[in-house]
């Protein structure tokens, strides 16, 4: 009975939402603010990628918030799964017993530097080409995921991760604060905009995107490592229960 009511209510919400979203015409021109962004990001900011101009400049304050959300998510995950990680360091010999295949290990040696290079390229060119700090950071984190999967001995120093993410966060917020100290507003550009399509253009925008790239890479790597250490912990428990049964 309870389930039936829940399903009926959910269906009702779904129908209401469908009706409303169906009403919105596809591709209709409702771009009051967006048109301004499109026209002015190359002209006034010297940024070729309008998406980057919106993410880092026009709505950079939201991005600072989103970076904080990510920071919080990795902190919260660490705080919930903390005790498990202690178990895992004690049982680090277990990780070495399940080594990845030769192909994965050798390929990792070739690919990981390239992956990291690609990630760095994506966030350094965030103001020129599609992509940016978030995307570049994720690419770098996949490189570390590769290392974690290929080499069971590979461990990530959490102190380094904390250091990188702190430094990147301070850089982002600090660049914003410099704007205030120079008599402008928070996160306002205080460097020369440069020539459109140059690597050194867009004022503070590439600097912020590089900081975001480092931060996202460090945080996601930390999250991956934390999650990986629980799965190993669970595996250890399975093995323990099996040996108990055998005995």
């Amino acid at each position: 009975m309870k389930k039936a009511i829940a399903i009926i209510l959910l269906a009702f919400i779904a129908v209401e939402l469908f009706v409303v979203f169906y009403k919105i015409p596809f591709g209709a021109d409702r771009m009051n603010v967006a048109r301004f962004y499109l026209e002015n990001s190359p002209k006034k900011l010297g940024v070729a990628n309008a998406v980057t101009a919106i993410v880092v400049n026009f709505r950079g304050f939201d991005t600072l918030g989103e970076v904080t959300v990510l920071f919080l998510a990795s902190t919260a995950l660490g705080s919930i799964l903390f005790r498990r990680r202690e178990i895992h360091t004690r049982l680090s010999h277990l990780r070495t017993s399940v080594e990845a295949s030769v192909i994965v290990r050798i390929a990792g040696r070739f690919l990981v530097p390239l992956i990291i290079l690609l990630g760095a390229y994506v966030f350094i060119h965030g103001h020129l080409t599609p992509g940016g700090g978030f995307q570049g950071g994720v690419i770098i984190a996949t490189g570390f995921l590769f290392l974690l999967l290929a080499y069971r001995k590979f461990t990530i120093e959490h102190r380094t991760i904390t250091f990188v993410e702190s430094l990147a966060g301070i850089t982002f917020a600090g660049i914003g604060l410099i704007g205030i100290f120079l008599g402008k507003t928070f996160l306002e550009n205080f460097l020369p905009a440069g020539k459109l399509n140059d690597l050194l253009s867009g004022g503070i925008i590439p600097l912020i995107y590089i900081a975001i790239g480092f931060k996202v890479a460090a945080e996601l790597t930390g999250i991956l490592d934390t999650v990986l250490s629980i799965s190993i912990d669970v595996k250890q428990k399975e093995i323990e229960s099996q040996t108990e049964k055998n005995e």
Partner: protein
Amino acid sequence: MVATNHILVTPIYFIALPLFFAFLLPLLGKIYKSFIRIVPGLMFAYLAWMAVVLLLYVYKTGNPVIVKIAGWAPPIGIDLVFDQFTGFIATVIAILGFLVWMYSYLFKKVEFDNALKYFLLLMLIYAGSIGVVITGDLFNQFVFLEITGISAYALTAFYRGRDGAEAAFKYLLIGSFASTFVLLGILLIYTQLGTLNMADIARNIDKMDPTIKVIAFILLFTGFGIEAEMFPLNGWAPDAYSQSPGPIGAVFASMTSKAGLYALIRLSFTIFDFSSANELLFIMGILTLVFAEGIALRQEKIKRMLAYSSIGQIGLIMIAFSFNTYLGVFAGIFLMLNHALVKSLLFFSASFLAYNSPHKYIKDIQGFARYMPVTALMFGIGVFAIIGFPPFSGFWSKFYLLSAMAEKNFVILIILVLSVSLIELVYYFRVLHKLYFAEPTGEYQPHTPRWNAMLAMVLLALIIIAIGVYPDLVTGFIGKAAHAIMDKTTYINSVFSI
């Protein structure tokens, strides 16, 4: 609007500084361990001072302080609005933030990692709550709602027990629904109007398709209602209040729920133009009040009781705002102030009274008044103030609420509020009776608060008594705040005049 670009005093610091120091805190901890306590304290003190300065400026000149971000005027960029209403709530949050810091200065003195995490999360939940209140942009409000929410989940799971994890997971599930609803609502508005600025939405709201407008309003109202602990979306609140560390109960009561409530009010009063929004606020307020107080009566655990009482107060505030008269809004803001102060004092004292009891049953603290007389007295002051006895601040807030009802000739409502006060009286006095007159069981050792916690509690109690004896301290600010929230046109014009 002289102070918009001031270097020392600008509303942007309410958000920029906590975020900056939250990122910096792990590094500071490496240099000198006590920095993780001292630096947040200096920041909270500075921001509380700054809030008072800004509020006095706004109060005297009558001009709101509006700040552009990244140099773009609204609606192109994001703006922060520190006017008589948002400024008042932000000031209350800022002062309580400082008091919460003072109360928890010695928190987890021995465990460095946990203390670091605690102060970091405290700064972020503070920044998120103030951000929800002072931002002038709907999507930015969503971002701050996320920051508040995720730091609240982390603080709920702070003690890594099974109950804490369960409470945090419950909160996480409901909170994710809240975020999704808010985001969908914002999306609907954006597809119609192509803007995210609140003032811009408010002046163009009649251009929206009526059906889409209704659905967008319902989505946003539900989403923010979850954070405001509105019935029936508050299942997370009692668990979160009782599982989080002691001072965080005060943070939930004085910061996060106020931020959610503010968003509901801004939605109904400024952004949308439904006259029935007030009726919705009224009905939800009544339901929240009656259910919460009814459940509070049956609670055996002290923190759960305080949590349900807190939800009941939210209901009362929603009823007060739903009248949409000057007196009603005035009473609503006074209730918000009173609830933030008094509930913080109650959580502060209760968490020391029940310090050594693992499940925080009310019977565990019986007779503790003889061991910790000052803490018990603080709890007593909180009880008298929340029920509404003179000479405490709660008296005036309930007095203005009843006069607002009398002005509209709502006799039944007056009876309802008075009988709810009677219920409050019953369950709070039950605790006071046990605290003062029952024989101690001897099962748990009392834990006397340290000087910093004591100082924070005494300061709060003094503020409560000062407002109770001399309400003119705050009525001027509250009066201007009530005018500011009811005057939609001035809000829109002042945002676009920068």
